[in-house]
């Protein structure tokens, strides 16, 4: 069965600083990987996804993530954080297309000015 670990419950960064959110997954085959963002009182919005091919994927809002099979990781990065990026971020793994997604517990991002 799949599982996802997001080691950081909270992260605080200064506006304009770079960001990296960690995600480690467990799955026996090639996973399908996702990052979602959730603002307070809102549903989840897809930031980016990895299915196959280039291991560095670009998403919306200037985010990118890199799939590293050897480390079972799919870390999310952004070179310069904006105050509007403050939200909760969830990493998720899926076994196959259309199958259920297994989510991590989330990382709350705080941005200080």
């Amino acid at each position: 069965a799949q599982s996802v670990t997001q080691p950081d419950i909270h992260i605080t960064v200064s506006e304009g600083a770079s960001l990296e959110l960690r995600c480690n997954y467990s799955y026996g085959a090639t996973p399908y990987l996702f990052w979602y963002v959730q603002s307070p009182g809102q549903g989840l919005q897809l930031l980016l996804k990895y299915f196959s091919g280039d291991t560095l994927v670009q998403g919306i809002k200037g985010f990118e993530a890199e799939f590293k099979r050897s480390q079972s990781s799919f870390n999310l990065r952004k070179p310069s954080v904006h105050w509007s990026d403050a939200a909760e971020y969830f990493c998720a793994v899926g076994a196959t297309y259309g199958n259920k997604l297994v989510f991590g517990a989330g990382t709350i991002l705080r941005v200080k000015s």
Partner: protein
Amino acid sequence: EAGVVQSPRYKIIEKKQPVAFWCNPISGHNTLYWYRQNLGQGPELLIRYENEEAVDDSQLPKDRFSAERLKGVDSTLKIQPAELGDSAVYLCASSPRRTEAFFGQGTRLTVV
């Protein structure tokens, strides 16, 4: 294109009362999911539909939860009777075949 629509957005009920949530997926999306998100946690799948067929309901507490997706479009999730531990956000999501899931804004249920 309209997104996934859920109603109500908020619901407060007393324990032992019934409650129902409604979801209208994105047009043309065959797969529909119901997830539950407890405070401080990631969403967990309750049930997944492919068209009108429930293909994964292993995590649905069947003694009190039920769901239906008539005609393979809208879906309703019901809890009867509700317990205090059912307080959570209930998220509906949909996806076309073989791709990512799109989520609604969720229904926040508070059981008092």
